[in-house]
């Protein structure tokens, strides 16, 4: 298992380097930051001076190496837009995104697994079929539209929930949380649903099909033949075995939850890193964009690592031959 973790970490480092390279080379095309930095009264000389200051006149390789070197020391540069260290901005914004992603993921997993199990057990029931069909509506409309519709219904027409922002937040150390205030809790409902809906549907359908598959296995049949109760079979035996493949997908999905937060955060003016990224794109704030992409990759890699380690917890077969996985 140790070897496995080491291998994953090495791979992750490789992935991060690649992401860094890809991200970095792409940003050169996103636009020219200098134009945005200077007001409309700037002169050509200003442009040259700033290009120089930002190192934009250096050869590409030099820029990348500099960037990597700094990134390794935890220095992600200074945001062009805000004039503040990117690491600080990210640290300030990350809690909002992480809380949103966390609640969405929780929502997606709880409802996804719950409904998945329900629709699998009641395979041919009316309710199950109804849920299966309607759940597809959630994935048949773009996220931004769902968000706007939710705002329209629940904020504008009904006035039940706030339409934007995080509500009141409380600082715990450097972490600002919205979980401790009523307005914070209310504010997270709509964005979390918007963001988690797609993943919920996906998890639900996956759980259902895996569960149906597992319910057909010999050991379930044997468990029935031993006279175990339906409960014990469905939840003790089938569900646990269903979880093994579900965990992978859920892991990947949590990663994309964080990425898709870009859209939800824009719609709900949720002050997280996704919104930061969108602003950064508009402003060609290269250090912020690079940092964001690296952050996403780190999260992804981390989540995947956790997912892989979860396997060891759930599936005893793996500790025996960890080596054969991942190949």
């Amino acid at each position, binding site marked *: 298992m140790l070897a496995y973790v080491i291998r994953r970490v090495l791979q992750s480092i490789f992935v991060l380097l690649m992401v860094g390279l890809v991200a970095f080379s792409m940003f050169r095309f996103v636009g*020219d930051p200098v134009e945005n930095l200077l007001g409309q009264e700037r002169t050509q000389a200003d442009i040259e001076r700033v290009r120089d200051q930002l190192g934009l006149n250096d050869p590409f390789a030099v820029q990348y190496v500099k960037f990597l070197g700094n990134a390794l020391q935890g220095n992600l540069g200074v945001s*062009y837009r805000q*004039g503040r260290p990117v690491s600080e901005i990210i640290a300030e914004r990350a809690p909002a995104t992480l809380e949103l992603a966390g609640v969405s993921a929780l929502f997606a997993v709880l409802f996804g697994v719950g409904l998945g199990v329900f629709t699998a057990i009641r395979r041919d029931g009316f309710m199950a079929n109804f849920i299966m069909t309607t759940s597809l509506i959630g994935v048949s409309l773009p996220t931004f539209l769902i968000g706007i519709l939710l*705002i329209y219904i629940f904020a504008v027409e009904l006035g039940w929930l706030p*339409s*934007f922002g995080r509500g009141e937040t409380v600082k715990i150390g450097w972490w600002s949380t919205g979980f401790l205030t009523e307005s914070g809790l209310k504010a997270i409902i709509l964005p979390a649903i918007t963001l988690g809906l797609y993943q919920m549907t996906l998890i639900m359908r996956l759980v259902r099909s895996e569960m149906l598959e597992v319910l057909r296995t010999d050991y379930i049949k044997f468990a029935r033949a031993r006279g175990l109760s339906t409960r014990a079979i469905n939840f003790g035996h089938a569900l646990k075995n269903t979880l093994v493949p579900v965990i992978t997908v859920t892991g990947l999905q949590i990663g994309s939850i964080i990425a898709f937060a870009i859209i939800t955060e824009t719609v709900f*003016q949720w002050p997280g890193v996704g*919104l930061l990224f969108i602003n950064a794109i508009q402003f060609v704030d290269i250090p912020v964009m690079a940092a964001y992409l690296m952050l996403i990759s780190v999260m992804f890699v981390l989540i995947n690592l956790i997912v892989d380690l979860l396997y060891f917890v759930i599936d005893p077969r793996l500790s025996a031959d960890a080596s054969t996985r991942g190949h």
Partner: protein
Amino acid sequence: ETLRWARAGDSLTLDPHSQNEGPTHALSQQIYEPLISPDMEAKPIPALATEWMVKEGNANVWVFKLREGVKFHGGEDFTAEDVVFSFNRAKMESSDMKELLVTIKEVRAVDDYTVEMETEGPNPILPNNLTNLFIMDKGWAEANDVTKPAEFDDGEETYAVRNANGTGAFMLESREPDTKTVLKANPDYWGKGQFPLEVTEIIYTPIQNAATRVAALLSGEVDLIQDVPVQDLDRVAGADGLKVGNAPQNRTIFFGINSGDADLENDNVEGKNPFADVRVRKAMNMAIDRDAIKQVVMRGQSAPTGVIMPPFVNGWTSELDAYPKADIEAAKALMMEAGYGDGFEVTMHCPNDRYINDEAICQAAVGMMGKIGITANLVAQTKANHFPLISGKKTDFYLLGWGVPTFDSEYVFNFLVHSTTDDRGSWNGSRFSNPEVDAMIQSLGSEVDLEKRNETIAKIWQVVQDEQIYLPIHNQVLNWGMKSNIDFPVQPEDQPHFKFMKFN
């Protein structure tokens, strides 16, 4: 009372000299004060200066009398020292305000409450340039090591980016950039009694997405929003407890056309530039149905115009402002005459996140061009991609908006009409270049005889109009949505000054 205020973008920094940009100034205006401040009609009124005049006997020197007894939020006294310090700071390399002060050679304190500014030559409109030039406390700046505006390669956040110590009616309570900024009323404000000062707390939240912003107002989560999408005005105005205020804005929207190059890169005509022919430009001008754009695209919220300056500007006349009625037949005839009866194809560039309904205006224009045979391929993109094309002279047909902070035509000419040189014509995407006109423009800077100066301005405008260098569309109208109990006029520069706000 607490005011919850939202607009599309946040201030980029609290450092008053780092960014010369609308939303940034809008926030700074509440905390810091300039010597001369625009009021809610954008007219200059005394702020930290009580009087100003050209020094007797020396046309090159302006004298400012400062307000006495003013204190910064930190309790420090406001004196001439602070003004000198602030101006010098704003003139530094890393300042974004320096272009407005290029003509100033020296700023000196005569006594504690008198300041003199010496310019290169006579500068009759200097005070107009100072309305966004905020005064910092010298002692505070030195103590916090913010004696110069932040450089991009510093790698660290300077203190002034997120802290502020001004003389304004509101003091900074807390700030989370892009999220929320809270201001409290300044209990020791010098203007007590002069201004309503009914707002005790301002909670400012940027909300980028237009629909969300409107939703926040409709659901009562905010009290005032700037940038109400034109299509939602009726809904806001019709909603219980809400109203819309509007005012003409200091910004003209127009199309630029590359008439200067010998051949165009973005067209399908080989070897020559169809835009070089003034008849083509005239035809294009005639093809544009400004009234339809106003009626449909802008929902009535625009002032169609025939010139690329808003009415506040020195040099504006109603004759210039008049625009032709759309006349497709006449335009087609002109095209035919110019030898483009079969039309041609060209790329049109357009921002999609800068001006009110910018993309829709371009789309409508594409249709109108289509009617006279010009096939315009529309490329709409974010401002970060759009503007470099213009200043890089890489686009031949583009949409641009221009505001005139100095309220003087010279500003327009310098940037849009003068040929491109090191210090002028940087936004002249039309490539129009005429040495005589250039000479006239240069003369404006030092002409003290206002009458003569205005004549020159009129002459230049005549050339601009005759040559049809640009295709003006309209002047934007500002719309603010707010609670109906708020008594607050819309400011033409889109800058709310909350000390003027009243509730009823």
